[in-house]
């Protein structure tokens, strides 16, 4: 079943006289429970595509349907509400809120959802346990290592049980050991919690952990060497 449908999406930037078009009629279908990695040269438009799917950037043309909602049609406020309910975002640098503890950082997305305090406590507990940081709940980001911070970031991204989790180079600023830890964790999130993941990476090893590997080249998307066509065309 298609959870994410990216249909003929283009993104243009005006830079002086020149028009940069990192995405040009890109199509992508992601099914529920898939772990999709996205590679490509620097500046090829990976982050752009990821941010469009995450609903924090606007397409120039095309549609993005996620769990039946065309998010390109939502107003800015509605889009924020939609993100709260449907997207978990893992940043390259964790982007934790420094004045909040690990627990409070993880709780942050739940504050946006209709949920009792007891339910929130329960969910935060589960998310922290999933990233094995139960004993660090009361620590502030500055009291944790980079790897631990990133794990809190992952807990924060999965705590609201989002429709899709996006990760932009989640291991980009970690050492090899920690990278290994994080990748294993992401795999577990995908396999054990059944979450759908879209991960941008530069690292072939990291990409190989995913169930599908995509490449962005010359503004177009390829899987196993073939350009992805709209779903309708493929099934035909």
């Amino acid at each position, binding site marked *: 079943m298609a959870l994410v449908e990216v249909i003929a999406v283009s993104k243009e930037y005006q830079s002086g006289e020149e028009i940069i078009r990192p995405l040009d009629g890109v199509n992508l279908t992601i099914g529920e429970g898939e772990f999709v990695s996205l590679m490509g040269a620097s500046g090829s438009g990976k982050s752009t595509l990821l941010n469009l799917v995450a609903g924090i950037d606007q397409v120039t043309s095309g549609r993005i349907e996620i769990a039946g909602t065309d998010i390109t049609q939502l107003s800015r406020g509605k889009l924020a*509400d939609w993100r709260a309910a449907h997207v978990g975002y893992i940043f390259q640098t964790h982007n934790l809120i420094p004045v909040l503890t690990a627990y409070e950082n993880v709780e*942050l997305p739940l504050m946006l*959802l209709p949920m009792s305090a007891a339910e929130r406590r329960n969910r935060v507990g589960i998310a922290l346990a999933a990233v094995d940081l139960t004993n660090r709940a009361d620590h502030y980001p500055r009291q944790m290592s980079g790897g631990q911070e990133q794990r809190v970031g992952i807990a924060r991204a999965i705590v609201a049980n989002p429709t899709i989790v996006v990760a932009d180079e989640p291991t980009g600023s970690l050492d090899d050991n920690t990278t290994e830890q994080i990748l294993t964790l992401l795999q577990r999130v995908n396999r054990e919690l059944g979450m759908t993941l879209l991960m941008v990476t530069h690292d072939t090893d990291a990409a190989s952990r995913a169930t599908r590997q995509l490449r962005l080249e010359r503004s177009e998307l390829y899987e196993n060497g073939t350009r992805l066509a709209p779903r309708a065309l493929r099934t035909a």
Partner: protein
Amino acid sequence: MFRRLLPWDYGVRNLFRRPSRSALTLGGLSIVVLLVLVVVGFIRGLEASLAATGNANVMLVYAISSGSDIENSAVPGRTPALLSASVAGVRQRHGVKYVSPELYLGTRMSIADGQQEGLGLVRGVTTTAPLVRQQVQIVEGNWPGPGEVLVGRLTHSKLGFEREALAVGQSLEFDGRKWTVSGVFAAGGAAYESEVWCPLADLQTTLKRQDLSLVAVAMETLDAAADVDLFCRERIDLELKAVSEVGYYADLQKHYKPVRMLGWVVVCLVAGSGVFAGLNTMYGAVVGRIRELATLQAIGYRRRAILLTLIQEATLLSCGGALVACALGLLFINGTAIRFTMGAFMLRVDSVGIAIACTTAIVLGVVGALPPAAKAMRLPVVEAIKAI
């Protein structure tokens, strides 16, 4: 709208991120609010001293020729008797008519054998004076006997003396004579509080005058008060004029209108400068947090929630400043005496002053937070999220 706001703690803890900057801003805002409090206290004190003085049922009768300046007025000594006989409706109790003959003038007063002197206001009165001027209350000592004076609780300020210099038992010199302070009176902030009261007969003897400056009469009703005016108009030969006490002081208030206007202008200017203190801090707080604020938006917080948390931070600071300022104001400023040409009055830190100060603080917080917040949110989330 449920739970769409950032946790309260987030705003509070952000204030402790740069404790010294927050403390400095708190100090700056406290000073601003304190200044507002002082100026409002000044205006309020001035207004109160004139307003508390007036009573609509009390008529002041004085000479037409004096214009509106009672100090220059001279009315014949028989006027009080004439008034009580001719006008119905004069208040009376136990057979005493509430008619107060008074001799009122400005004069040079000195203490300690002329080592310290000041320009004071003296009022020669009889025992009916406190009946007519009902706000007057003796707070210390006794009503003056011959050669004695009763001083108001602000008289020392008006003269520029220490409070102790006019304590009961001290002496005061004016019009070539030494007087002993027999008591101190208060008058609920009224202008009399900076006067010196002495027995009318004594003052007349000292000045070699038989006449009066004015006669104050308390009437039973407002209609009766109007009759006093009528009497003065009818008896042209007496050349008298009647003004209600309220009217008299309302007239004086008009003279101070420019001062009050100036006061409000100062309040606005001071508050305006306070905005910059708030702005400066909030710019600092926001600039270093562009990425964090974008992260919150990426998580799903609306821009409104972020705006509110920034306003919360700024208003917490400015309200803290207001709290400090009001505490200082009540402790050190409230009741400070101010000398003024027509007397002295006290700075008043009252509910109105505090309300104005707190409103100023809240406005400072909100206005100080808006431009930096707007700056933070102008940047698209995708760009802000990469900011350092």
